[in-house]
Each structure stands twice: as C-alpha cells, then as structure tokens.
C-alpha cells in the first residue's frame, strides 16, 4: 500500500522537456456556473506507464460521460500513466477478443483497456476489460450497472479498479476536493468555497462571501466541511452539511477562530483561538460545546492536526523562534515535543492516511515547498520545486498530495505523488485557487 516506501524503485526521476500540451478534455459542460479546473500537462514524465484506453462502444466520443475519456484523464492525473492519444488509435476494439495485440505493441502501449456501454433493463451496463499488451494476458474484467447521469462516477470507479490492479494502491478517483477560489482584484475580492470531483469536474459553490473564506476541512465521513469565514468582519468557524447546505457557527469567540481540524471520530474539532492576542490550540466538543485548552505558550500555536488514533495533536509553533512542527497530547496538554529540526520553517502538518508521515510546508533554499516528514525516521523529504507551494493535503489512498502553488501571477492547484516522482497541475481559467483539501473515501459503496 504505502507508495512512499517504494523509493527503492530505481527509475531515474528525469522529467522530460515541457510538453506544453494542454488536455482540456474536461472543460465542457460544467454543471455549475463556475470556472472549471483543468489538467495541464506541463511536464512529461519519462517513466509514466503507456496505456491505451480505447473509446468505449455504444457511446459518442467527447461528452462529459465519455467513459474512456474520463478513465484516461484520471490515469493521467495520477502522473503514473501516460494514456495514448486517440488520434493514434487506428483500431477501436470494444471487446477483448477483437484486440490485435501486435498493433498495440507497435504503438508502445504496455496495457490496454477496452469496453462498451449497453442499455439494460436497469439502466446502462458498462463492461470493461484490461489486458497486458506484451503477453495478451487478461488482468481484469467487470460489468458495472449505472444510468446516464452515473456514467462519470462509473468511469472513476473503473479507473480506481484499473489503478489498483496495476499499482497495488486503491484508486482515489471517486473522491472529491474542496478548495477556495478568489476572483477580483484587491481590495474588492469575492471568495468562494468550492467542492468538485477529484479531477476538478463539476465545481459546486458551497458558500461565497466578499470577506475571506479559508481553511476548509472535511469531516471524516465526508458529509461536512468545517471552514473559517470572516463574513462577520471577524473570523468564525462554521460547519456546513454538504447534502443540505445547512450550516452552524461553532466558534465565534473574541479574537481568532481558525484552523479547524476534525478528530478521527468526527466528534471534536481542534481549533486555534486567541485570548489576548495569543494563539493557542483548543479542542471543541461539537455536541457539548465544551472547550479544552491544549497549548499555553506566548508563541503562535496553530494548524492543529490529529494523529490517526486521536491521542495526540500535531501543530505549528514558533515558540523556538521560527515556525516548526510539534506534537502534544490531545487530552492532557502535556508532553509537548518538537518534531522538525531541519530547515528554518516547517508548518501546516497534514497526516498521511497511514498515520506514518506528515505532509508539511518547508522553507527549502529560500522557497516554500511541500515535503513529507517521516514520523519514525524523522527524515524530511522535499517533494516539489515551486517558489510558494503551500496547503498540502493527502489523497485518501496516500499515493498523492494535492497542494496550492503559483502559476504566473495566479494561484493554482497541483498534485505530487507522495514519493515526489510525479507532478501534475490543475489550473483554473479565472481567479486564484488555493487551499485544496482532499475528501476521505466515500462511505460504503452503494
């Protein structure tokens, strides 16, 4: 499962010259009136695995429900696969028995996916088959039942299955991301909290304001978002239920109310509050509204993040002069322990799903970059090469980190694999996008 450990794979991390090819296959028909994120392939990845995802039978090509298009885009977004261009596909088999493997060997595809969409009594049946091109060996075949509206979700599900079959890591293409988008020039700016599919499709505005919105955080069940809003001319923490839009202000104490982080059981929020201007970490019980103070230090203590078992809280503090990552017990406010010592700035710890490492922002040779910090070995591994990378958030499968970076003068989102080998960028047509947070896996598959 943990891909971070497969640094042993000795493939050179040589990134080819910029392909400067923009895949805009997702940009049509956004259901919400909001700018769509799109995948920009700005870097060729030399060791990405070539795979042919042949257009599925029974479907017109190019629409939002183009199953093969969605699968190819997902695999591309992971950085680990390089889907073949459709224009290179002379043959368009839709069943495994129709594949002439020698043709695909010539096209240098390592794997091939074929399939078809067929009407059924219950809706639409989507059948797909995955083969090894070199050996002709069938690797996976399955039929999923859906309807017209469910085609995209089904395509993501198929991409999940293919990704898991080929990498050993469950796919995370059926998940969502939340992010903040900002339009307009200062001081007249418009802030929006947006939820979209993990590939940026279908952005939906959760809330918007002329005052800043920041720090979205998914509840562990994926049903709620906590976030900070300045709509009352001061910061307050809200919890909003996505299905209904109902929201509740859970903290609007005097001073700062910020950096909400859900406990693993979803019952509590760790928060940053300020009393007399001093930021400390607190834990708020959502049902009882009971508040427990966790840190008491004249320094800035902020950006709490729970350990996997909920027993401790990681946070950023500048108590030793510069921002560094610490750990404290979530109950006793005891045993504050400094974790990071490398580099002069380490902040915003976010836990990997396996609980073994943190994604952080580190000051690396004068630039703010995303790194992982191994909680056991204490090794810090810089993953990105931007100037102002921030807000790391792990995919629920732990294979990738989404983060915010700058593309020219604008904020954009980007993804990097947890071993740093693959990078992809998601950019927006308008405005700044920032603070991406990856949702947990959906509850049980229905």
């Amino acid at each position, binding site marked *: 499962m943990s891909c971070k450990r497969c640094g042993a794979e000795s493939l050179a991390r040589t990134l080819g010259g910029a392909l400067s090819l923009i895949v805009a296959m997702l940009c049509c028909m956004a259901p919400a009136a909001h700018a769509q994120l799109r995948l920009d392939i700005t870097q060729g990845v030399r060791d990405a695995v070539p795979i042919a995802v042949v257009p599925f039978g029974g479907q017109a090509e190019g629409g939002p429900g183009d199953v093969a298009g969605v699968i190819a885009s997902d695999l591309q977004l992971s950085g680990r696969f390089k889907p073949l261009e459709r224009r290179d596909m002379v043959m368009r088999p839709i069943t495994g028995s129709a594949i002439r493997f020698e043709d695909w060997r010539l096209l240098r595809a390592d794997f091939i996916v074929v399939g078809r969409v067929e009407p059924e009594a219950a809706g639409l049946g989507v059948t797909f088959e995955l083969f090894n091109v070199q050996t002709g060996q069938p690797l996976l075949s399955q039929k999923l039942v859906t309807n017209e509206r469910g085609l995209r979700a089904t395509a993501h599900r198929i991409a999940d299955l293919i990704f898991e079959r080929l990498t050993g890591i469950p796919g995370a293409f059926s998940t969502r991301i939340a992010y903040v988008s900002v339009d307009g020039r200062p001081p007249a700016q418009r802030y929006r909290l947006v939820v979209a599919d993990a590939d940026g499709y279908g952005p939906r505005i959760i809330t918007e304001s002329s005052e*800043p919105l920041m720090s979205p955080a998914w509840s562990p069940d994926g049903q709620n978002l906590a976030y900070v809003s*300045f709509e009352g001319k001061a910061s307050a923490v809200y919890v909003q239920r996505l299905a209904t839009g109902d929201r509740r202000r859970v903290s609007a104490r005097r*001073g700062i109310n910020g950096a909400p982080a859900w406990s693993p059981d979803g019952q509590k929020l760790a928060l*940053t509050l*300020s009393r*007399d201007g001093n930021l400390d970490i607190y834990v708020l019980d959502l049902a009882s509204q009971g508040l427990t103070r966790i840190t008491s230090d004249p320094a800035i203590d902020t950006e709490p993040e729970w350990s996997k078992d909920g027993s401790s809280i990681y946070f*950023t503090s500048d108590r030793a002069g510069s921002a560094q990552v610490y750990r404290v017990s979530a109950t006793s406010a005891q045993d504050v322990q400094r974790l990071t010592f490398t580099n002069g700035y380490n*902040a*915003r710890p976010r836990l990997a799903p396996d609980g073994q490492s943190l994604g952080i922002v580190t000051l690396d040779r004068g630039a703010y970059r995303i790194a992982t910090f191994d909680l056991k070995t204490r090794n810090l591994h810089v993953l990105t090469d931007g100037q102002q990378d921030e807000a790391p958030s792990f995919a629920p499968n732990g294979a990738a980190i989404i983060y915010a970076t700058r593309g020219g*003068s604008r904020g954009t989102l980007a993804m990097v694999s947890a071993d740093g080998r693959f990078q992809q960028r998601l950019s927006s047509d308008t405005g700044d996008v920032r603070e991406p947070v990856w949702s947990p896996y959906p509850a049980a598959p229905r």
Partner: protein
Amino acid sequence: MRWTHAVALAVLAFGLAACQKPKQVQPETPSTPAETAGTATTGLGTEAGATTGTAGAMSAAQQQALAALQAKNIVYFDYDSSEIKGEYIEVVAAHAAYLARYPNARVRLEGHTDERGSREYNIGLGERRAQTVRKALMLQGVQDAQITTVSYGEERPAAEGSDEAAYAQNRRVQLVQVP
C-alpha cells in the same frame, strides 16, 4: 532596546498632542452652540453624544481630528517582524491621542502579512502585529475597551504581485477608526 525607545518616543508624542488639546476644543464649543446643542451642553460632554455611535453625533472638532487621522492610518512592517518602525511611531501616537481624547471613539486594528508561508500561521503573524499596535496604544492611555483586533493574515492583500514591492505594501496594520 528599540522597543523601549519606540515607546518613549510615542509617549512623548502623545504628551505633546495632549497639551494642545484644550486650546483647540475649549473655544469651539461656545462658538457653535446651535450645532452641538442637541448632543452636548459642555465642551467635554461632546463625548457623551458620541456613544450613539453615529458620525452625526460628533463634535466638529472630533470630526476634524478623525479626518486628519484617516490620511495616515497604516503601519508597515519588515519581513517576519512585528516591531513598529521609527517612521510609524507618529502614526500610532496620533491615533492614540485621538482615542485618549475621545474615550467613546473605537479603533479596529487589522493585521496583515505578505503571502509567503502557511496561511493560518500568517493569521498568527498578522495578529501579532495588531497586538503590538494595541499595546502601543494602551501605553499611551487608550482603554482596552476602545480597541478590537482582527488578523486577516495574507487573505486581504493591499497590493497584488509576488515581489518585494507588493510584499512591503501587504505587511501592515490598518488602524480603522470606527466612529
């Protein structure tokens, strides 16, 4: 220490402002009895009128003083610093003098940072800057209840751009007088 130096200067500036105060205010009230009759009957009583919280309840003197402040209401900071630089001590002192003179006046200190680094941590840095200004105001006789602080971190930049010129404009505390 630079800090004590700053406070000494600020206290001095406040002292000067305080000395001039009676001369300006005393003769004004009798000269405009019709305008102030509704809000106050004595010179110093104008502040009682200000509790209504509307600009219309202010004396002409206070309105004039307020207008003068609004021209200079930003304190800029160095990178990763919350120290009030010498050139801004006067700005803080002028606001302190006004707030001490009109106890019903209110100020909102909005702390900001440049865009570098983590957003929530920058909220902390903006708050630290706002608190530095708050403490300077209080040392010059402003009451705690007159001051509110808010930190926007890097969320409300004054200038766009990712260069030092923009960063310098964005590392600031704005002193917003709430009439």
